[in-house]
């Protein structure tokens, strides 16, 4: 346990001092948003055993809602983000109700198909800017007090939000509710026979995950100033799966590691390899599934246990 505390201390100090270490704050913020997205996804895959192939729908749709309210209607950062979260929670409720009627691979295919529906809505609806998406979203200010135009201020806001989500997910997983989710994951028929209304538990987990994914999408829009089709595309759903799997699904810190690797790869690798990024991501996917299914953090933990 000592090592884990040390690790969190170092990670925390690094996160707090990152803007002064010469790391581009916008990159760090983007990374934190995707880490939050992956943590939200992991609540579903890692702790409830449901593989959603459509999480980009929540991330992306919330990004669009926030962008539209902030850029077109001049809403402030807080209400626009809140609206994004509420909309993705509702979307999560609708998609969740449909998807949890089936399990396993069917669940994956249903979420994928419904997310594609949301993609077409974002492509064709009158308020989304079609192929261009919504550009020039102002960050505005938080409650009229904190000016978010400054990257440093925005960075600490995003970091705070990320930490909040991280602690919240730990709390949920360790709560009685989380234990029931784990029981459903490990042995669904037994959870049923113990008298748990498993569909309700699954639905709540799904909505929670969708809501947090929506928060990540809204913040991403405020950070980068745009919402585009790539936020809501199938490829984005695939990437969040990869982040979680690569870092270690079912571990708390795994998705953060996975997001760091994937976002860094996309940011810096594309300079060297150009369009081959997709192929490389595909190869990482295959390697991950074949060689280390527990992910980086999961394998490290298993290695420590063996010694």
């Amino acid at each position, binding site marked *: 346990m000592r090592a884990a505390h040390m690790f969190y201390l170092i990670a925390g100090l690094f996160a707090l001092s990152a803007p002064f270490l010469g790391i581009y704050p916008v990159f760090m913020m983007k990374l934190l948003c995707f880490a939050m997205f992956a943590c939200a996804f992991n609540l579903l895959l890692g702790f409830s055993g449901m*593989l959603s*192939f459509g999480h980009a729908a929540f991330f992306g749709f919330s990004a669009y809602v926030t962008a539209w309210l902030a850029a077109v209607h001049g809403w402030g950062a807080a209400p626009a983000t809140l609206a994004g979260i509420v909309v993705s929670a509702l979307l999560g409720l609708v998609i969740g109700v*449909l998807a949890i*009627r*089936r399990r*396993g*691979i*069917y669940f*994956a*295919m*249903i979420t*994928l*198909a*419904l997310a*594609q*529906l949301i993609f*077409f*809505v974002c492509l*064709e609806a009158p308020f989304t800017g079609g192929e261009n998406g919504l550009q020039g979203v102002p960050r505005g200010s938080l409650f009229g007090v904190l000016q978010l135009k400054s990257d440093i201020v925005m960075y600490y806001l995003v970091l705070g939000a990320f930490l909040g989500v991280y602690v919240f997910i730990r709390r949920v997983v360790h709560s009685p509710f989380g234990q029931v989710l784990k029981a459903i994951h490990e042995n669904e028929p037994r959870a049923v026979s113990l008298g748990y209304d498993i569909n309700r538990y699954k639905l709540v987990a799904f909505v929670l995950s969708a809501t947090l994914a929506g928060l990540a999408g809204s913040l991403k829009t405020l950070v980068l100033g745009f919402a585009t089709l790539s936020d809501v595309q*199938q490829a984005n759903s*695939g990437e969040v*799966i990869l982040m979680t*799997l690569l870092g270690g699904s079912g571990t708390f810190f795994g998705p953060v590691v996975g997001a760091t690797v994937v976002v860094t790869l996309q940011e810096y690798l594309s300079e060297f390899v150009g*369009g*081959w*990024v*997709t*192929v490389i*991501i*595909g*190869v*990482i*996917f*295959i390697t*991950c*599934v*074949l060689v280390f*299914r527990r992910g980086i953090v999961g394998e490290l933990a298993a290695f420590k246990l063996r010694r």
Partner: protein
Amino acid sequence: MTEIFGFPVAVILGQLTLGLVNGSFYALLSLGLAVIFGLMGVVNFAHGAFYALGAFAALLGLQYFGINYWAALLLAPLVVGVLGIVVEKSLLRRLYGLDPLYGLLLTFGVALVIEGSLHQFFGASGQSYPVPNALGGVINLGFMILPIYRAWVIAVSIAVCFSTWFVIERTRLGATLRAARENAPLLQAFGVNVPLLFAATYGGGVALAALAGVLSAPVILVTSQMGSSLVIVVFAVVVIGGMGSILGSIVSGLVLGIIEGFTKVIYPEASNIVVFVIMAIVLIVRPAGLFGRE
């Protein structure tokens, strides 16, 4: 001028045949998915990528080796099928006995590799494949004008679909396949080469996808991404039909193609999403799918 609900009959029939053409592709693809899933329990996410590979194989064969359409109709599925066998032997094989979700994730990775490579080698812009001379032109049926190639695609797809159904449900080979689905170790004890059967099934399933790719090459633009959104529609078709049933996947593929074509006439904005909406409704009414058994 005859009209139904204010739409000219010729327009409706034109969209219906287009819908039936799309439905033929859905049927061929969901059939391949159902065959692979039925035996191996793998949802093949790379199905759309193999479909694109089929079209590219035909296109490149024509450009570089002068292989005509008729030869491509045989050769492209063969080449892609062999590639499928390689994928099964080298990658998929290692995942048997694990959670089927891993198969889905692995084939998703395979799809990214194939589509990303096609994109790198052949660019983002689409290329067109000429309609073979013998199938060019139109037939005037009196009430509508039917392009011969469309009729050809529908006829070939239906013929291939039902022969596949016949082979699996009515022949000795099919009986062996179904036996492997029930109890593979026992079948192996009887002396059947089960690993070969698995490899051949995967190869055959993706060969069907490649055949759909060759058939579609003359009617759509051949691009690296042509299969990536199609495979999602086909997944929805499979959820609607119920994946266990071969006949169910063929019928729902064709019917959904027709419904999609019809939507293009009545309310074009919804034509991209109509299949997903139907899927949602089916999930509410009959969660196991129309032909499925839970």
